[in-house]
């Protein structure tokens, strides 16, 4: 436990001492929250478009923010693998489980902090715009987002183990774009139908956003199926990430 705590603490400090993590993990999602609220205010009520209304936007922006935690997890691991720091730790009594938990725990905590800040900002926006958004609903939405937080951390662990320091950020940017677009953060995926909706439904990001929005609205009938799908994805992604990390750790030792 001591090794996990020491390594987690190091990874947490590495992220919170990087100014870029504030810009991408907090600043950018919050700026998008404000911009999209302004866009929503500019859309005439007759259009019947509610995707950017704060009760829908809050969950979407929270999912969007989580993709940046994935990016920072991935960048941290790929950078560690490229340098000699991990060589020292591989020669220490740390086991592969210590490394995996040491990377996952602090990033999961960052996800929770990020969601809380996003929801506080959303709540303030709801008070300003007069759209009803309950604190209890946001708490439920936070709970519904926890599997997504772990899944995004798992994606970061997986990509960081698979890709090198140079390739990792670029590839993560593609995933961020796909996740926010096909996750229905910026458009109402359910109103599209056809192949696009099928693709959205196959991927986990749509279900993350859907579960978060439905939980905030106390719509458990919509939330539960999406939550179960997200949980299944979370388990699969974490299993793949752990397996790949262990394989890479053994390969690095050769």
């Amino acid at each position, binding site marked *: 436990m001591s*090794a996990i*705590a*020491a390594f987690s603490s*190091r990874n947490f*400090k590495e992220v919170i001492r990087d100014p870029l993590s504030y810009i991408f993990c907090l600043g950018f999602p919050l700026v998008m929250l404000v911009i999209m609220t302004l866009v929503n205010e500019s859309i005439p009520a007759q259009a019947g478009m509610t995707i950017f209304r704060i009760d829908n936007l809050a969950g979407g922006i929270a999912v969007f923010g989580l993709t940046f935690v994935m990016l920072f997890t991935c960048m941290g691991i790929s950078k560690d693998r490229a*340098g000699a*720091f991990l060589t*020292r730790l591989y*020669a*220490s009594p740390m086991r592969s489980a210590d490394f995996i938990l040491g990377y996952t725990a602090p990033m999961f905590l960052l996800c929770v902090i990020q969601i809380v800040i996003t929801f506080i900002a959303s709540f303030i926006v709801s008070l300003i715009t007069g759209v009803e958004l309950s604190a209890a609903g946001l708490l439920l939405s936070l709970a519904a987002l926890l599997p997504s937080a772990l899944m995004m951390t798992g994606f970061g662990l997986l990509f960081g183990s698979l890709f090198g320091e140079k390739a990792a950020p670029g590839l993560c940017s593609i995933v961020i774009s796909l996740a926010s677009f096909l996750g229905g953060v910026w458009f109402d995926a359910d109103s599209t139908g056809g192949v696009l909706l099928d693709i959205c439904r196959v991927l986990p990001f749509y279900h993350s956003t859907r579960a978060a929005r439905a939980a905030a609205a106390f719509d458990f009938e919509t939330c539960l199926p999406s939550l179960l799908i997200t949980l299944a994805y979370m388990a699969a992604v974490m299993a793949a990430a752990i397996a790949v990390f262990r394989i890479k750790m053994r390969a690095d030792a050769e």
Partner: protein
Amino acid sequence: MISVETRQLTKKYKEKTAVDKLDLTVGEGEFFALLGVNGAGKTTTVRMLSCLSKPTSGECFIMGHSCSAEQAKVKRIAAISPQDTAVAEKLTVRENLEMICGIYGFDKAKKSSKTAEMITLFGLGEYENNAAKTLSGGWKRKLSIAMALITEPKVLFLDEPTLGLDVLARRELWEVIRGLKGRITIILTTHYMEEAEQLSDRIAIMINGKLAALGTLSELESMTGETGLENVFVSVAERGRKEAAE
């Protein structure tokens, strides 16, 4: 007592044999230098001894514990200061040392006393609250060695500890390393002949993965008929090259 032992230790990467049937013994408290040109097999040997790499065949032991079968025990008693500076860049000097204490399971009191001891030993006091990334190359290397030494190893591997440092920083680091002599077993790999000459009790020269010469400086001088480690090294390396060509 034998501190480090290799028996027919071999490492192959596809067609290339990096270490070839290496037999070595290093006594407890000895300062042992491993020399060789690039690709001679020094770092690969150190990696196998510190459980970072598995031997293709043969065995190696640290304080009688097998590096293959008893990795957990070996990792508790051996530490490495890798070739590249292995520090957490955004952590302070003190935090880096405390992190290693945590990884090795030290309690709060021991963590505090060992950190203070290393800061004093390596003269890191002035920089203890500075982020590691702000340190110069020489100070980073000192921190890197302190992070290895804080684990209370019985065997310490120093893989080219002064590589890339200027003359002054190198000399300063030698003084620190010299202070460790006799307290623990140290295996040093280096390209600097002067470094090995000044610090080591015994010197091994590796050529193409094989042990080409082994002994004290005076033994190596008598063996080759040369004076000074640089001349000894060149003589052994050229002999090795000729033998490989034949």
